[in-house]
Structures are given as C-alpha cells and as structure tokens.
C-alpha cells in the first residue's frame, strides 16, 4: 500500500500498523463485510416475500392452503434456528443434486445413498467439479441466503399474519360494502394499512437477522468471523507481519461493528415508524395530525 512497507520489521508502531492493516489479507477481510451487507440486502426482501406469502396463505379460504401457511410459520417455533440452518443447507444441497441426477442421468445403475455416502452421477454434481472457485463460493452463498430466507420468512409470516388481523375489521367491511371483491379488499385496503402494525415485529426480526449474520461462518462461508479468526491467529517471525494471538481484538472489532449496525438500525426504524404513522388511525398517527394542525 505505502512505499515504506517493503520491510515492516524496521518500522515504528504507527507505520507498522498502517502497513499491516492495509495489506492484501486485510483487503479480503474488509471485503467480507460486504458479504454481511449482501446477505442482509438479499435476505430481507426475500424473507419478507416468503412471509407475505405465508401470511396470505394462512388467511386463505381453502383449508389445505391455510394449513400449509400455518405449518410453515409454526415450523420454526420451538426449535433453535441454528438447527434449521445446519439442516436446510444440507437438505437443499442434496435436493438439488438429486433432482439434477434424475434429469441428467435417468439410467444410472447405482443407488444414490450407499451407506454413509451420497453419490450422484458426475453430471449432476452441483456445482460441477471442474467449475472455477468463484462458482463454488457463489453457490454456497446462494444456498446460505436461501436457508436464511426460509427461516426468517417463517418469522415474518408470523408477524404479518398478526398485522393483517390487527387492521380494524370495520375497514374491511366498509370496503366490502362498497362492492369490492375479496382480492380488491386484500390489496387495496388490508395490505396498505397493515404495515404500521407489522413494523415493530418486523423491526425486531431485522435486528435479529443482523445478529444472525455471523452464523454464516457455520455454513462454511468465508465471512467476517472466518477472516477475524484467520487474521487474528498468531504469526511467527517467518511471516512478514509477525504478531501474537490477536483474535480477541479482531472479535472486539466485530462486536463494535455489530453494535453500530444495531444502533443505526434502531434510529432508522424509529424514523420509519414515524413516517408510516402518517395518516393512520393509531395514537401515533393522531399525534402527528395534531402536531401539524
């Protein structure tokens, strides 16, 4: 990075650190923070969509659909979600390979499950064994995102279902009295009004999602935790930047990062609550009306 970095052992503390913290490995560490944000950016809308689907399904008049929606939201309660993370990532991986196996090589002579092995034909390997490294990484990340979306979708479904029931019933009856169909009532009256009721719950889920991102490490992704452990481990003098075990300080850095993320989210959520309360038939909405009048 800097010119004086050629021989770090001769540098004073400040310059040593300015070289150390800008070397190549640290660039990868800083990039891995983008992984956290990417996960948040993709998971949040996808799980919201899953949750919306689940909540809408739970309200369906066809019983099997309603059961399906309720089963999905009830599924994740009562069981630690780390179990789901570890479970789904394997299941998804095997399901994809199994499906591709059935499509690509229908006349494969051997069993897929042989004792402790899960063997599919070479064409069904996902991603294929000669694919470049980045394909493997992207595939792993996509699986992880999907797993997160399934789990957090169930939580969102729970909150949205409650929010839909919190919309004053008179509003829906009025809409029906105007001759709106069920779908119209849902899309034009229920959905626009439910968000303010859903926001506290969704806000909580968002904070929980932030705090769940380090679990990516357990799913085998090279995320911030991976790099913190990697870089923090002690280096002997054969390395360019020898140092003792600094993992504690790296984790302290991560802790501060997550605290900041939480604080910023809290502030943003408070603003959003204020914004969504505008014109709503709630106490907060009433307060806003009075303030402007």
């Amino acid at each position: 990075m800097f010119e004086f970095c050629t021989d770090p052992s001769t540098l004073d503390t400040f310059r040593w650190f300015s070289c150390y913290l800008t070397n190549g490995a640290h660039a990868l560490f800083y990039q891995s923070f983008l992984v956290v944000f990417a996960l948040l950016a993709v998971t949040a809308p996808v799980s919201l969509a899953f949750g919306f689907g689940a909540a809408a399904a739970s309200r369906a008049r066809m019983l099997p659909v309603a059961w399906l929606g309720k089963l999905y939201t009830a599924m994740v309660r009562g069981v630690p979600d780390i179990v789901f993370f570890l479970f789904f990532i394997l299941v998804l991986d095997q399901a994809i390979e199994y499906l591709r196996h059935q499509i690509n090589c229908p006349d494969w002579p051997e069993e897929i499950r042989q004792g402790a092995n899960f063997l599919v034909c070479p064409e069904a390997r996902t991603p294929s064994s000669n694919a470049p490294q980045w394909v493997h990484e992207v595939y792993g990340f996509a699986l992880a995102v999907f797993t997160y979306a399934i789990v957090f979708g169930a939580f969102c479904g729970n909150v949205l279902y409650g929010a839909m029931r919190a919309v004053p019933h008179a509003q829906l009856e009025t809409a029906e009295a105007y001759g709106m169909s069920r779908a119209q009532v849902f899309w034009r009256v229920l959905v626009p009004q439910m968000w303010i009721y859903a926001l506290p719950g969704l806000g909580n889920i968002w904070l929980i999602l932030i705090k769940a991102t380090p679990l990516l490490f357990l799913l085998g992704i090279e995320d911030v935790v991976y790099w913190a452990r990697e870089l923090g481990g002690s280096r002997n003098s054969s390395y360019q930047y020898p140092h003792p075990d600094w993992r504690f300080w790296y984790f302290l850095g991560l802790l501060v990062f997550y605290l900041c993320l939480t604080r910023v989210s809290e502030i943003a959520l408070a603003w959003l609550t204020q914004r969504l309360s505008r014109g709503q038939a709630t106490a907060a909405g009433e307060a806003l009306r009075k303030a402007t009048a």
Partner: protein
Amino acid sequence: MICAQALEAYGLRALGIGERLLPQADITLCQQVVLIGSGMIWNVYFGILALGFGFVFAVALAVAKASPTRALRKPAEWFIFIFRGSPLFIQFFMAYEAFVMLPRIGFEFTLLGVDIAAETRWFARAWLGALIVLFLNTSAYTAEIFYGALRAVPKGDLEAADAFGLSGWKKFRRITFPTTMRLAWPAYTNEAIFLFHATALVFFSSFPAFQQRGDALYYANYFADRTFNPFVPYPIVAIYFVILTLGIIWGFAVINRRLNRHLPNAERQRLRIRPQVIR
C-alpha cells in the same frame, strides 16, 4: 436389546461416562437418539444455571437502569446495550479468546499454588466459560424485560404503598417487585425458551468439546457428517427441543398461576407464548 446396549454405552456419554469412542460405522437409530439425548444434559445444564443466576443479576440491572442516579443508570444501560446489540455468537468467540488469554496476561496466584492455576484454565472450558457468557447475555435481555415491567407498575399501587407508610426496601419487596414479576412473566417465559435455544450454540462457537463431550447439536452434527444424512439426527434434536420447550412453558405457567393467584379468574393474564429467534 441393542437399544439397551446403546443406552448403557452412550446414555451419559456427554458427561464422559460410558463408551469412549463415539459410534463410527453402522450407526443405528437408537445410538443417535441416545447420544443426542445425552447431549441435551448440557443444554439443560447451561439453560437452568444461566437462567437462575441471570434472574438475580437482571433484577439488580433493571433497578439500576430505572434509577435516577446517573452513576448507576449509565453502566446498566451500556451493559444491556452491549449484550443485546451484538450477536451471541461473537460474544462467545470473544469470551473464549479472552479466557484463553487469562493466564498469559500474568495473573499470579503463586500464593495459593496449584489450585488457582487450575482454576483459571477452567474459564476456557465450556462448562464455566460458556456459562458465564450465557449468564451475562440472558441477564441483559431479562433486565430489559424487567425494566419495562418496572416502569409499567401502576401508579396507584405505588401511591397506595406510600399511603400505607411503606418505603424503601419494604415498598420494593412487597409492592414493586411482585407486580413487576407479574407484568414481566409472559415476556420472561419467551426469554427462557430463547435462552435454552441459544445453548445450542455453545459448542459451535470456539468452546471445544473436551473429549467429545458435547451438547445435543454437537452430536447431531457429528452424525450428519458421518452418515451424510441430515434427515435423522436434526429432526431428533428438533423433537428434543420441542419437548424441552413444552416443559419450560409448563413450568413457567405454574409459576405464572401462582403469581396471579389473588386475581379473579377473568383478570388473570394468560401466558402467550411467542418463542423468539436467535439472539
């Protein structure tokens, strides 16, 4: 018959009693159920102890946070913010690294000799180190719940207490605290469930499973890696946790009934269980 053998060999494996080697090949369903069940001992151990100690500390924290004295309020607020605002996973990692560094930082207990030298090493072991982290973490979450309840104590109750000449410790002991518990109990039940779920993280975060003595998820993961079949061990863990959750709900409902026993039936708060997620 084979099940009885599995029970004998692995029933207390998580405590280091029984067969030394974990099942290697030809893993039976019995072995999975028994070994994962023996791992649940750790989950229950962490959960109960952390909850028990955490309860006491949380009451103190909540009172400190509600205190008008700045010197008491600020530390409590910061403690709660730090432990609630950061992932438990990271807290585990950090605590482990800190505990590993402990003896090296230069604590010299030469006065008492070997005894103490051994004790500092225990911090890096899951049974003590992870317990401390879980204790601090649940204290922070519980304190926030109790703080909310403390502020929701009806004004009339406190005025009535003043009118009766109660003050200080007596007022807190007889009026404020019981009402706080009543108000906080449903949320506290969720926190308890939540904490038991969090215990599944212990052996996945830095704390090594000494001699493969791990918790339920540790063994489930072991089986999933061995058999490459997630459809058996993970549902077993899930079932164990559902049973544990139902047990917690039942236990807390009993206490809830006792807390509200003076109220007429209709006014009693029903426990609404909304288990939360990861922390």
